């Protein structure tokens, strides 16, 4: 096995609530796979508690939530809190999709680490994740 793939980044991709738009999340899943990451899908209609539990069982590095309908201002802060309470607050929490600018400060304050809005390039997401990981590893050594 090539050296670089020995410890692939693990990313949970989830959709919360009644949002059933899956095109974006599917495209991102394939892009991350091509970039050498392990992507875990949870399926649709997840609650914050379900996503937090799956993130812990799967011990992912990153939790990515796709949001293309309203509800993120309530569900994402809950998810961030549940992860923290379970001792998993160190996981990177990302959200992508339709996130109005006025919601962004609230989400960031609640513990969302990064917001990708509509039109974000998958390459930007991959670059961001790789840079985050490099910073993590530098911090630990």
């Amino acid at each position: 096995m090539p050296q670089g793939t020995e410890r692939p980044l693990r990313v949970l991709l989830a959709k919360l609530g009644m949002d059933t738009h899956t095109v974006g999340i599917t495209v991102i899943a394939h892009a991350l796979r091509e970039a050498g990451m392990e992507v875990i899908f949870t399926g649709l209609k997840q609650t914050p508690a379900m996503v937090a539990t799956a993130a812990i069982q799967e011990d992912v590095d990153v939790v990515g939530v796709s949001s293309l309908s309203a509800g993120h201002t309530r569900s994402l802060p809950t998810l961030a809190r549940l992860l923290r309470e379970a001792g998993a607050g160190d996981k990177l929490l990302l959200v992508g999709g339709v996130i109005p600018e006025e919601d962004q400060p609230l989400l960031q304050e609640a513990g969302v680490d990064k917001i990708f809005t509509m039109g974000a390039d998958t390459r930007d997401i991959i670059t961001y994740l790789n840079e985050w990981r490099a910073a993590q590893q530098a911090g630990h050594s």
Partner: protein
Amino acid sequence: MDVAKELLGGNMLAGGRAIRWLDDRDPRGAEVLASVFPHTGRAHIIGITGPPGAGKSTLANAMISQLRSRGRRVGVVAIDPSSPFSGGAILGDRVRMARHTLDADVFIRSIGTRGQAGGLSRSAHDACLILDAMGFDVILVETVGVGQDEIDIVALAHTTVIVGLPGLGDEVQAIKAGLMEVGDVFVINKADREGYEATRQQFELMLHLRAEGRQDSSLHWSPPVLRAVALNDEGIAEIIDATEAHAQFLRDNGEFERLSGQRERAQTLGLMGEALLQLALEKTDPDVLAAVEAREIDPYAAARLLLRSL
């Protein structure tokens, strides 16, 4: 967090972390394993295997429900293929098991094959040990969709469930070579589809031939062929009856412990082989390999030469 101590107490965060370390070949994984290994060997490991599209995840989902209704705590190891090119993977098995996510007595872990052939992941065995140490009574291991001879699951599981589906004659052809020889319980899923009866007869015939070929065996377990529609929870109680009967059969004959012991022995030899190869590669003279590439020396002679210099 003392990962070993916490996971023995059933802590999910610790269990998830231990499996990650082992999957990543992080040395901390081996340390945890050393502490928890004495607490393993109790769980009944059930392999679920079959061709792609047979409904393995859906069946696993239904089996979890049935096992939970009988009070069993259930661990799940769901394996999907990693890309041989990028090393990445899309692990989607838990989508079909989502209704069990919030059950504290169910732990589902998705694992990529990470370069391992044979239908399993290189760390499937380790994941089973961790779940066993966490106190799960039954561990379901769902393999990737397999073809004819990807039967590594047999070395890992006490009980192997082969999942087929009706209709295609080719489908039975596809599983007869390897899978028919190794199954302990056969399930024809999606049995409401046309062709069920013909498929059942083919299964029965092949199992009959298999039994005739093994008449000298003192141990005799007749694998049942069961009908299921996993999506509607049909036939699932009978499948769990069969897996539990098989576990009892193994225990009555002292086979349960023997299989568990064999598994650890095989794992040891596998790890040794991996380490030896690594060691040998570090000492391999690149000039000899270059000579093979240039067709100056044949691979057999080159391998002999390289081994002599170790």
